[in-house]
């Protein structure tokens, strides 16, 4: 291994190569330095901001929700203390096992899939509320406290609904779904639509945290601000009274509004439910409510749509007057039916009303009079006046599932059924049957429009909302004729609701209109066979009983709209209920 002939040249190459590598190293160092300069000097502000955001955590503290009151400051929805089982993931690795243990110990009937899903969204230090804890459950838990490291009982606020008769208007709250907003939110009716108004501003606790979300120290606190209260137009006593007047075994609805400003004073629907069950998260009862085929969550006052029946007739009469199709004094002969083409259209009174003028036609609810009028009427005029008087409209008053209903027109039929309009259909539309679909709230509004002379206040639930008028003015003479006729329905002999004046003479005097809403089209033969009136007719095919009335008849203050599903005729069932309620409203000056 002779190494003494090391060549000078080869050493030179090594030194030259060494130089190249040093230059290479220097260039790399320069690149790194320039990059550092870019990060730390040029973009310093950007990364500084990121770093500050990184270490701050804002924890929200739920605000106290605004209370809901009736028009006389009776509490309808408030907040009260409650206790919850809350899991903190950081306290034990075994937290899921402990949840199962708790469930079997206290029979909470927890939904584990749901909990697993929700827990993923929560970081280790944010408590996740499992369920409410009753006193018995708390006692049971305290006895076995040593078994649970990750579960604590935490006090918080819950919504409190003292009267279940308001559940179908006020709605209820839903569970929080996000870790960043760990508090309940309104999910139904007013609780939902007035969420922003009621919610308030959450408090903020600014914490310096580490990467796992653990609080290192508290930096500052902003206190939460209570949400705004909400005053409703509803009247506690009237709402409760109305509910008591709805036959328990029947589905039905009652709406009472004030004529002067459209305030909804009560709005009931049967069957109903208790919102407190949702707030208490009583899962079994909630399931029962959701699966009930009587649909207790469904508020028939504004989500229930029915053919209005004869209650609709004033609209047809007004169209006749406006278009000069009828002379109110001129009489039409009712022989029990009217013909159009080769078809007969029957009056509810088989033997006929004889000679009938407009007032008598409304008072005694003669169908033939309106059939004759309908033969000359354009259906589009009916539709357009209906819309002017509050039908075929959705009122934006914060209620979930409020519907629009339907008053048919040629355009509608072409668009939805792809068929042209038949005059025969105008005949049945003019007496409130056929395609007509109206809700009890809409019918109350229709009568408010008539009593207000065409320009009517839009119904409202928020007491502090300004009263807004809409619609077009009616001819004063026309309005007077209609109102006189409606007064006669109750006040004059042979009026379809004259019975009311006889049986309860001490009650406030009212006007109004009865209606019978057909559930199924009655075949001609059946009418002739009198099967129609048979008491053996299956319950669910029985007509809906409708009545819209106002009181006092000479200076209307209140309107009550009543529907009893499958109740039979309007005069027999709905009218007496409406009379009682109007009397109650009047005497209690709601």
């Amino acid at each position, binding site marked *: *291994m*002779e*190494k*003494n*002939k*090391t*060549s000078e*040249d*080869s*050493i030179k*190459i*090594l*030194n030259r*190569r*060494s130089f190249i*590598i*040093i230059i290479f*190293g*220097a260039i*790399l*160092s320069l*690149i*790194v*330095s320039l*990059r*550092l*300069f870019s*990060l*730390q*000097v040029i*973009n*310093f502000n*950007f*990364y*500084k901001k*990121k*770093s500050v955001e*990184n*270490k701050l955590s804002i924890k929200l503290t739920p605000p106290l929700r605004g209370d809901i009151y009736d028009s006389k400051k009776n509490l309808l929805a408030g907040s009260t203390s409650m206790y919850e089982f809350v899991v903190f993931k950081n306290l034990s690795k075994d937290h899921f096992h402990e949840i199962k243990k708790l469930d079997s110990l206290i029979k909470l009937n927890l939904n584990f899939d749901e909990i697993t899903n929700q827990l993923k969204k929560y970081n280790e230090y944010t408590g996740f509320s499992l369920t409410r804890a009753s006193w018995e459950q708390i006692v049971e838990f305290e006895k076995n406290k040593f078994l649970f490291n990750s579960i604590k009982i935490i006090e918080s606020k819950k919504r409190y609904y003292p009267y279940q008769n308001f559940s179908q208007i006020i709605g209820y709250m839903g569970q929080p779904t996000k870790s960043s907003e760990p508090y309940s939110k309104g999910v139904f009716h007013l609780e939902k639509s007035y969420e922003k108004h009621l919610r308030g501003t959450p408090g903020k606790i600014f914490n*310096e*945290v*580490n*990467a*796992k979300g653990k609080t*290192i120290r508290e930096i500052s606190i902003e206190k939460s601000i209570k949400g705004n209260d909400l005053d409703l137009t509803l009247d506690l006593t009237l709402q409760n009274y109305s509910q008591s007047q709805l036959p328990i075994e029947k589905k039905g609805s009652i709406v009472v509004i004030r004529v002067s400003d459209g305030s909804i004073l009560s709005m009931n629907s049967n069957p109903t439910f208790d919102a407190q069950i949702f707030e208490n998260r009583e899962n079994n009862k909630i399931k029962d409510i959701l699966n009930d085929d009587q649909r207790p969550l469904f508020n028939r006052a504004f989500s229930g749509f029915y053919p209005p029946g004869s209650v609709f007739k004033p609209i047809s009469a007004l169209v006749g007057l406006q278009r000069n199709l009828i002379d109110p004094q001129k009489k039409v002969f009712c022989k029990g039916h009217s013909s159009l083409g080769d078809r007969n259209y029957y009056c509810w009174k088989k033997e006929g009303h004889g000679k009938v003028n407009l007032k008598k036609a409304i008072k005694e609810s003669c169908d033939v009079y309106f059939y004759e009028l309908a033969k000359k009427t354009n259906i589009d005029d009916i539709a357009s006046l209906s819309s002017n008087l509050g039908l075929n409209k959705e009122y934006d008053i914060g209620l979930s599932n409020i519907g629009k209903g339907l008053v048919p027109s040629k355009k509608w039929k072409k668009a939805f059924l792809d068929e042209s309009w038949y005059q025969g259909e105008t005949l049945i539309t003019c007496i409130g049957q056929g395609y007509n679909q109206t809700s009890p709230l809409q019918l109350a509004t229709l009568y408010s429009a008539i009593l207000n002379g065409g320009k009517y206040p839009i119904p409202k639930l928020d007491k502090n909302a300004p009263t807004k008028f809409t619609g077009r003015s009616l001819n004063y003479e026309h309005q007077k004729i209609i109102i006189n006729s409606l007064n006669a329905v109750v006040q004059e002999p042979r009026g379809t609701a004259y019975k009311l004046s006889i049986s309860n003479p001490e009650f406030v005097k009212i006007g109004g209109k009865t209606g019978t809403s057909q559930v199924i089209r009655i075949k001609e033969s059946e009418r002739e066979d009198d099967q129609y009136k048979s008491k053996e007719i299956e319950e669910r095919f029985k007509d809906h009983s409708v009545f819209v009335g106002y009181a006092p008849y000479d200076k209307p203050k209140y309107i009550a709209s009543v529907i009893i599903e499958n109740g039979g005729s309007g005069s027999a069932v709905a009218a007496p209920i409406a009379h009682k309620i109007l009397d109650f409203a009047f005497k209690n000056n709601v």
Partner: protein
Amino acid sequence: MLSKIMFKEFKSIFNLNWIYFFILLIIFWIGEINLYSAAGGSLDPWALNQLTRFLFFLPLFFLVIMLEPKFIFNFAEVFLILVLIGLITTLIFGYTGMGATRWIRIAGFNLQVSEFTKIALVIFMAKYFHKLNAEKTIGLIKSIFPLIVSIIFFILVAIQPDLGTAVIILALGLVVIFYAGIKLIYPLLSLGVILLISPILWTFLKPYQQNRIQIFLNPDLDPLGKGYHIIQSKIAIGSGGLKGNGFLEGSQSSLDFLPEKETDFVFAIFSEQFGFTGSILLISLFFIMFLIPVLKTYKLTQVFNKIILFVLSFKIFFEFLINISMTIGILPVVGVALPFMSYGGSSLLSNLIICALLLNFMSISENKRMFS
């Protein structure tokens, strides 16, 4: 008798390059301070441990300084075979952590043999080229053997899998071949070949390695997952600014936003506290540390000595640059430790051995028959 073959005379200890030794101590001490602050101002769990290791390794450090260069020269192949056995043992009996089998337990220590592969390979190749240096240039055929050896070790480490260390091993092999004086055409040619076969190499990478490279190219692909490291590291460094947040004032690191902050991302901790100024000072310190042995090589004529001094000194500086480049997002995160600053025994030990070798070879007085 044996000790005379193995070791230099004791008095040679006084010929040490003390400047280099003090720079080493300064860098290690900066690393200690950094580990102390990474723990939020605590000696636990890293700083004290690392200091203990340093003190424990110090006798071995001086032992290596005292080794006779001839002994190292003669045993070059033996070191390489020992390392080869170690690597194979690791693959078969190794201790698995974080999806990779990189460690073997020897006398209570978890030893990462791949770290020592770098040293053994450089010594082996230094000897190989020393023997060939009589010829004016080293041809392709003769440079192929060390290339094959480098690639074998590259593969052995890459399948652990430890791509970072494997790439460093291959790079050091190539640097030796280049430094030893082969024609420039060959390194350029092999670079071309590597570029051509890189799509094929891509398919050999483990999914997590492919992931790291994709995320390096676009960290925002997965900001809370695998891109998290790079993003958080850049936030830490960037928020340091020109002067830094000050000692123990790095919120990114002290609040645990930075994963692996005591190992691969230890530079981010440093840079967040001491800013651009501190970073440039650190780079300068490492650059000076690189140059001191390199300057010595110009005075030497023995190829073995030159390669040992140049390439091993380059190794420390090269790893330093690769590590920083990772933390500032100009290279993919491949797991290369920051010499003397990252927490970890094997890296510290192997770098101490390298520095001891450098001190050793810097202090020798050459004679032309020293390796005969």
